[in-house]
């Protein structure tokens, strides 16, 4: 393997669409999936005379993201024009930030629990910008169609330091970053819908060499695993190039997911001169330090902190908290149920068991799931205090998911409340012994292993209502 003679050096540029109702500089809807060119106005169509007006909510979300990633927020940042011609860029320039970005200098700690070592990836900068429209080349033969619904949608670009050394590390960084942004509730972070996009800068060098090699930029990856594969492919290509005495050329490459290879982009990005200059249509963005501090204090609990706290508070394992914190809504659901029932373990079992099954089969979002955490907590309490059996609880849960009725009501309506009354249980036991004389005789003769079978008969007869502990006790006393 020639590759082992080289080290991969990767920095990632992540574009994240902010979760705003309207676009960055006009009042058009920022929704995904509307018919082409319906979410447009004079501003985002760049009609003569139209002017941009900054969306304050976009600033709030960008600042929240920057603070959540540990960045230093600049009290004054400047919007700049990035000039280039392309049909899906209506103004002929993109409003972005250049030499005075919103924030600099944060980091993401990537946890690698199996090894127990944490990897810290530096964030060089985080800036605000607007998205371009979409060029559609395959809709009309020989023509390019333009959809400007996306033009002007607010983005943040998060640029990492070249701190990543493996393709798996890149994947881990992206998954962690995505999770943090989800917790911060600043974006839908969906690669499918284009609300999260990744470009990778990659170079290679012999391990121990300080100087960075010539980098290439790889684009067009549509999933995190595609990023990992593309990095491997480009790493291999650069290594082979160097080994055969060649040089890496600075260029932009496109990942071809079908062929699993990279190929040079048709446009020579490297030769672009974007002629950045301060956007004269927008005033410098001046942020009040008290407001930034307030944002910092108001920050939601981030994944790492949440995992640690859940593990101690509810006595859960690393793997268990990992599962529960996969997304913030799930963690929130769990915690509400755990708190209300005072039983973290049971809440974990239900949430990762029946709840997940129900959500999968109905393709529902946990935020809209009919069984609310308080309802689940009630069910957990009913099982714990012996009102219903665990078997019955599963049936109750199914009904809850279907009807939304409270657990206690379903248990009562369905006659699933356990009967602890000695007389009733004794009657069922007697009936079972009468109806199954052969098993009864053998059991009473000392064949203890038949007790389970007999308990089963009693449970069936009682339609699950008999408290199995009492049934066992009673049978033992008869047999004994």
């Amino acid at each position: 393997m020639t590759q082992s003679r080289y080290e991969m050096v990767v920095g990632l540029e992540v574009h994240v669409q902010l979760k705003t109702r309207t676009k960055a500089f006009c009042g058009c809807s920022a929704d995904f999936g509307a018919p082409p060119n319906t979410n447009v106005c004079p501003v985002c169509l760049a009609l003569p005379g139209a002017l941009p007006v900054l969306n304050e909510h976009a600033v709030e979300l960008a600042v929240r993201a920057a603070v959540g990633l540990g960045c230093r927020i600049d009290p004054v940042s400047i919007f700049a024009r990035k000039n280039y011609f392309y049909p899906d860029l209506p103004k002929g320039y993109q409003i972005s930030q250049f030499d005075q970005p919103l924030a600099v200098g944060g980091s993401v700690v990537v946890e690698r629990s199996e090894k127990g070592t944490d990897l810290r990836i530096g964030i060089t900068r985080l800036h605000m910008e607007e998205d371009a429209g979409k060029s559609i080349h395959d809709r009309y033969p020989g023509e390019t169609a333009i959809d400007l619904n996306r033009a002007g949608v607010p983005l943040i670009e998060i640029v990492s330091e070249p701190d990543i050394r493996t393709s798996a590390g890149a994947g881990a960084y992206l998954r962690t970053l995505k999770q943090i942004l989800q917790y911060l509730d600043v974006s839908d972070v969906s690669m499918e819908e284009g609300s999260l996009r990744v470009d990778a800068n990659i170079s290679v060098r012999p391990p121990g060499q300080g100087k960075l090699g010539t980098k290439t930029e790889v684009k067009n990856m549509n999933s995190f695993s595609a990023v990992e594969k593309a990095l491997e492919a480009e790493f291999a290509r650069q290594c082979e190039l160097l080994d055969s005495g060649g040089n890496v050329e600075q260029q932009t490459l496109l990942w071809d997911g079908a062929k699993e290879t990279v190929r040079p982009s048709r446009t020579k990005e490297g030769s672009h001169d974007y002629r950045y200059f301060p956007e004269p249509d927008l005033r410098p963005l001046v942020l009040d330090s008290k407001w930034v501090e307030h944002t910092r204090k108001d920050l939601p609990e981030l994944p790492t902190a949440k995992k640690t706290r859940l593990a101690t508070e509810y006595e859960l394992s690393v793997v268990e908290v990992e599962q529960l914190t996969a997304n913030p809504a799930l963690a929130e659901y769990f915690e509400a149920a755990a708190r209300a029932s005072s039983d973290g373990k049971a809440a974990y079992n239900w949430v990762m068991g029946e709840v997940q099954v129900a959500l999968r089969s109905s393709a529902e979002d946990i935020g809209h799931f009919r069984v609310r955490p308080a309802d689940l907590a009630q069910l957990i309490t009913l099982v714990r205090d012996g009102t219903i059996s665990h078997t019955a609880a599963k049936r109750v849960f199914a009904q809850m998911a279907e009807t939304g009725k409270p657990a206690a009501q379903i248990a009562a309506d369905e006659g699933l409340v356990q009967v602890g009354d000695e007389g009733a249980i004794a009657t069922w036991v007697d009936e079972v012994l009468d109806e199954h004389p052969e098993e009864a005789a053998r059991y009473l003769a000392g064949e203890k292993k038949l007790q389970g079978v007999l308990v089963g008969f009693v449970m069936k007869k009682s339609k699950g209502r008999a408290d199995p502990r009492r049934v066992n006790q009673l049978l033992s006393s008869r047999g004994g």
Partner: protein
Amino acid sequence: MSVNDYTRLGAAQIASSVRAGEASPADMIGASFKRAAEIGAGPDELNIFLHSDEKASIEEAEQMRPRIQNATDLGVLAGVPVAIKDNIASLGLPTTCGSKVLRGYVSPFEATAIARLRANGAIIVAKTNMDEFAMGSSTENSAFGPTRNPLDVRRVPGGSSGGSAAAVAAGITPIALGSETGGSVRQPAAFCGVVGVKPTYGRVSRYGLVAFASSLDQIGVLGRTVDDAALALETIAGFDAMDSTSSDADVPIYRLASLGKPAPEARNPDAQAMRIGRSPIPPPPLPGPTTLEGVVIGRPKEYFPESLDPDIRHRCDRALDRLRSMGATVRDISLPRSPLAIPVYYILAPAEASSNLARFDGVRYGLRVDPGKGLKAMYEATRSEGFGPEVTRRILLGTYVLSAGYYDAYYKKAQAVRTLIADDFRAVFASGVHAIFTPTTPTTAFPIGAISDPYEMYLNDIFTVTANLAGVPAMSVPIGRIRRLPVGGQIITAHFDEYAMFRVAYALEAGLGAEAHQ
């Protein structure tokens, strides 16, 4: 007052006779079009109008009739005909910026300034000719032919708002909207013998003004008298949520009719950061209308060079004498960095223009020339054919000064000098000067075709461009004539102090009387 006196009526007089029911809006619009026909505003004669629709304008005026009968207040400009420079987006009439690239383009939205005029009862009679994309000082750069000066048809009306200045000078409308980037309202106002105002940057919303150089552009007004201009500016000024660079500073009343009311609070914006929250400075002690007692007028030596035309100097000295005789003190001052303004302007304005004009790419609207050889060829053919030579020259210049390796040497340095030029003005106003007086232009209107060297043309803006770079308000008022050609005098005041500017202008107009046109 009768509609027969139309060409002598001020905007306020028209509005008051309409509001009083003495004349109908349709009469006034009819009179405006009659005057336009008389004087030959059409393309074969003075070429003032690029677009007009008499029928539609009369119809709009007729629609006001029931509202007058219902005694609805139609506003301070009720029934006043206005002309609009063709780079301000209007509903109904096209907005072409004097360019082939926008031939036939009709905006689906309206500029805030126009909406405010309409909301106060004004009626648009025409979109006026201009230098293409406001780049020029003579209106000769229009793709649709030059406008002729109504006072001497062999001469230019100035530019780039030449059509608007000519419309007012010809008596077609009492007021018109123009736009400024480096003197494009004041210079044609001076050449045509009318009043032209460039407000403080941020005073009037730019929403709907097709951008040339966004950090310098400002909609301005032209009027036959100071009062016409004051009324028009009052109407269109003020904060607009659609323009982030528009100011939320209060708009005082500028008109003489409102004298006696206390002077409004002047505000001193931090022009560099343009941040919200300005520290108020005390208003200058301005007396009543008939006297300029206690007013200090600055006479900057850089604007009265040795080489200044002696006749221009004479008209300026006469104007200063009149100001003195009304009680003003004239003080010699210096704005030492002003001589750097032309080179600074011709770096910054083209830089912004090269970016602002990128949207005219043939993709969404306007001209498209497609040789069928792919995207790049379409861009090149569209823009080569769509833009005239001056626009092309400035796009190339601007692209150059912004490109990697030259940005620091040109754009960045020019920005630094721009700050120094603004500092000069701040220092003068902080020293107790209330207003600065200068000639508006170094010459009177020149013959059509006389200036072919672009740099010589650029020097027309030498006295006006500093106010755009500094962002301060400035206006030109008629101060006399030289061989029947008008001369303009320029009044410049501190940021957002249009109030003081108008007070001096009213006084100067009254003090000069008939001399203003002699």
